[in-house]
């Protein structure tokens, strides 16, 4: 289990959060089709750290960006994400 420090609500149990997708897979509306397709359908999927978008679904419902290690589950950084992730 992970303890995630929501920048708005403080430390909360992982169960309150849901994983959305990787930060690099957000598709912008003006992207070329092959770039958008790569963003949607390919992942680095590292055995290590990755930037991920999560949501505090059962809390403030805010969007967050986590830098998280997929081997150890250590959370390296959390920052709030606002409208800038939206296309």
């Amino acid at each position: 289990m992970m303890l995630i420090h929501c920048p708005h609500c403080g430390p909360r149990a992982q169960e309150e959060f849901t994983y959305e997708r990787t930060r690099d897979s957000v598709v912008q509306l003006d992207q070329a089709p092959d770039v958008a397709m790569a963003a949607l359908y390919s992942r680095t999927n590292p055995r290590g750290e990755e930037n991920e978008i999560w949501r505090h679904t059962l809390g403030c419902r805010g969007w967050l960006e986590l830098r998280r290690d997929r081997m150890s589950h250590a959370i390296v950084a959390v920052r709030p994400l606002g409208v800038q992730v939206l296309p």
Partner: protein
Amino acid sequence: MPLTHGVVTGTASHFPAKSRYSALALLRGALGGHRHWGRAWRAAEPKPSYDVVIIGGGAHGLATAYYLASQHGIRRVAVVEKGWIGGGNTGRNTTIVRSNYRQAPLQRLLEHSLRLWEGLSDELNYNVMFSPRGALFLGHSDADMTRLAERGDSLRAMGIDAELMSVDAVRRLVPLLDFSRAARWPIAGGLIQHRGGTARHDAVAWGYARAADNLGVDIIENCEVIGFTREGDAVTGIETTRGRIAAGKVAICVAGNSGHVAGLAGVRLPIESHTLQAYVTEPVKPMIDTVIMSQSLHCYISQSDKGGIVAGGDPDGFPSYAQRGQPVRLEHAIAQAIALVPALSRLRMVRCWSGVTDMSFDGSPIIGDLPLRNLHLNGGWCYGGFKATPGSGHLYAYHLATGQPHPIAAPFDLARFAQGRTIDEAGVGPMPQHR
């Protein structure tokens, strides 16, 4: 394309008589205190080069090696495994085997595999304990029953067995289900595939390993692939913790590590690695003699031949290679199982574990070529690849030997994602956490 009956399989005659397992050999062994049994496969040392190197000694990789040697006469083959064979998802899954999928390409693929399961113990001269005890989907509402009826119709049109069951028929088959009106998930009926069931997972890995070894395949354990050798856009071999090995073709078959291993060659895949857990209870007398699944829940329950109740639920829902699950997800899976079969609440859980599943972005496997020459992939089986083991190996071997996709595997190429031909059984798009 209807399924053609009579899948081609080899014969058990690959085995020289002296190494065949038989009742007589067992009897003879009993007289001598069973001291004559040799190793089932050699501990091979890596050679400098092979025609085909298969990365990953799970059951899929071992089956691929076996069919390359037995069906295509390609015997300069190595299976390179970073740990011990069958120590990945092969040895961690809940062993459900069935072909009653919703979409035609998956029906063809898994039915091809099921027919190979039916003759597998004979073919390998190894008892894989394939037990067609029936695979039952429960329906909990009128809507569930409509969907199950539709699925049954499409399966029968494909020549695959499916029987829609009334509540009474389900009650006769699994009397321990909660049929009360107050049940958390009331039972409205079911759809059963009688030819589905379970098999002994370890035996599948060991049986394929022994049979492949017998045909000259080198099985190299404790050997991790850490890179590829290349000439331009062609892969020429692998770098491992036990040195460099040259290969005519390199076949990735590493389940949950597909993204990582393809990444070593600079290829990004529509795959994310997630955790799936399962658990088993103390052994009890026979109480569930079919495989129970559900149209509305991700909950599956069966009883092993040893008597333990084996069950699992939803994946953990976020990317991880930790091979370690969250207790809350397990609790959720157990709560579902107890709601369906209340008697399970009296059993003690003896073990739980997890595996790293290669969640593809349409929920279907990827079998075929990668953008680099001589580099191939068989992966993305998500949480459902055990049932596919014989078919997966058979079709991948065909591809590696002929350079062409087998017609049954052709729809599962990597190009389908860019071309909008995804085979999305659940209809949720590139969101593995919702599968």
